[in-house]
């Protein structure tokens, strides 16, 4: 589904990703862990199409297409979804209008019929219930004045509405209390199927208790230096990153 080869990315002439390799197949969950500043969000944002990041080398193939050649909206319409580490507040745009516009753009791309306001509202309400969010958030401006946890839940709400094929969750667990963590994990597990895949960026084992990864990768200084199964996450939790820091890059 996703094949990343030797990905190099720079921001303002500083190289941040220094040759990342990753293969993701449908149905898989990959966890990416690593110290602060190691490039996890850069990686996630590059996949979503953020333009400030310059890809200086390497290639990314998604469902047989050159992902790097696609505009952010094209990627989203093809099923790529990024749950932002820091969701953006957009005063003046209501959550329901935002999501209805997004969903209809994606549906149009898939050749499906547009949802009218009533149909959308029905769907949105169901998804809100799924993640135990109050309906009133639909009428509020996107993330405007939301608490940290509410913003993270809103990301999962959006994911639930858009039903992506490849969802990248960038520290969606940070800032969540235990209940919210369970709810977010439920949201992910509900969407999980043999057709779609997840890349879960996290610092903590606790999310991985709910969303059990098939693979765990450790990103240090722009390289994946260790890959393993779910037990790797447990070891990192106990021992920290020091023992992997000096490893050479591996091919995941």
């Amino acid at each position, binding site marked *: 589904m996703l094949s990343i080869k030797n990905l190099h990315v720079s921001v303002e002439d500083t190289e941040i990703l220094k040759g990342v390799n990753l293969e993701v197949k449908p149905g898989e969950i990959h966890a990416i862990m690593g110290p602060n500043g190691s490039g996890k969000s850069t990686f996630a944002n590059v996949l979503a199409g953020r333009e400030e990041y310059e890809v200086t080398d390497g290639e990314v193939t998604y469902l047989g297409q050159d992902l790097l050649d696609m505009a952010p*909206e094209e990627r*989203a319409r093809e099923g790529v979804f990024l749950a932002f580490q820091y969701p953006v507040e957009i005063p003046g745009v209501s959550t329901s209008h935002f999501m209805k516009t997004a969903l209809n753009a994606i549906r149009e791309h898939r050749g499906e019929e547009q949802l009218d306001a009533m149909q959308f509202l029905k769907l949105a309400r169901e998804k809100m219930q799924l993640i135990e969010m109050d309906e009133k958030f639909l009428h509020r401006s996107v993330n405007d004045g939301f608490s940290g946890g509410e913003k993270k839940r809103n990301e999962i709400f959006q994911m639930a509405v858009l039903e992506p094929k490849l969802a990248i969750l960038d520290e969606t667990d940070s800032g969540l209390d235990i209940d919210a963590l369970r709810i977010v994990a439920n949201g992910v597990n509900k969407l999980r199927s043999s057709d779609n895949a997840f890349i879960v960026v996290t610092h903590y084992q606790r999310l991985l208790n709910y969303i059990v990864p098939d693979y765990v990768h450790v990103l240090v200084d722009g390289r994946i230096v260790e890959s393993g199964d779910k037990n790797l996450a447990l070891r990192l939790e106990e021992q920290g990153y020091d023992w992997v820091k000096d490893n050479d890059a591996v091919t995941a």
Partner: protein
Amino acid sequence: MDSEKKDIREWYQTAFADFENTLNGGASLPFHAVRKKAIARFAELGFPSTRNEDWKYTNVAPLLKHQFQPVTEAPDIAAESLAPFLFKGLDADRLVFVNGVYSEALSSVSNLPDGIILDTLENAFTTHAETVTQALGKTVSYEDETFSALNTAFARTGVFLSVPAGVVLERPLYILHVSKTDGREFLAAPRNLFLFGDNSQARLVEGHYNLDGGTSFKNSVTEISVGAGALVEHIRIQDESKEAFHFATTQVEQATGSNYTSVAIDLGGTLVRNNLNVHLAEERCEAHLIGFYFGSGRQLIDNHTMIDHAVPNCESNELYKGILDDRAHGVFNGKVMVRPDAQKTNAFQQNQAILLSDDAHIDSKPQLEIFADDVKCSHGATVGELDDESLFYLRARGIGEQEAHAMLRLAFARDIFNYIKIDAVRERLEELVVERFNNKA
């Protein structure tokens, strides 16, 4: 003085002589003497240059290249052609003017509450001669300013509205100006007089639209008197052709405890100058001056506002927002005068612009003149761009770049539109600006 200015000044003087001949009986009414004085005054004043502080950022030279003909008759237009300008679901009384000339056929007015006078100014000159003679020109003098002089000289009609004390206008009044030039460059000088009695309430919607993209010169003057405790909402939508010259002066006089809100939306015009002056003449008044403009191409949109806090305990709240693309030029000049007596004044002013292109620019001049010491006054001006983070967030959800742009621009204007309490008007306007954004995204 350069010769072009002199020639064009003479052009309007000659045009005035022709215009007089078309007035028939109108030339024998007392107001005609005022017109004559006004044209004489205009000849003395001439058109302003950019050396004039009030016109520092707005060069009227392009206006002077045209010889606009005063309108005497309007072309026939089909009722259906008004459809784009009628707000779906809006239940309003409607007065329609075509090229500045009243059209009875296109207008529709229901049975108004007792005592309300709603008529054309032309009729009111005879039917309500005394009231009109007393009130007209009381607050806007042809003596002081060229465009007011020119309006007074060529004022033929407009709206006369008088709402008696305690009367509430249930339905909004929609004053719709459409223009259709048929290649003829015309001058229209609408002159409006709105008198709101004590504790009366009314909502006015004023629309200025064009049907054929031609060049015209609309130069209007509106005098508004808001009685004690009266509540008036005044929405003004200017969506003229991109070739139109649009000059509008609105003077508001507020009595004790009155509340006046102006929401001015400017989308059209090649050269637009709005003067909005509010005189808070008695205590406990509230004035809200709200505006949004979107300029593209080489449009120039100039909003000059003046709030005169003449007495204590009044509140003014001003918020103007603009989006400028291409080589468009915005001007905001917000003068707030707090006179020595006007203690306990609250005056808030905010002016924000978003520039979408390197060649677009805004001249923003807050002008606070505060002569009282116990006051709360604040002002702020910001110039920015659309937020890249927000744009990426929308696009990362599948929303196309152009649509994402339009959403963010509308979001920027949202708090302006929220001042429009008539749902049908607000909703249509939001659609309209999104259409404008998308023509030019």
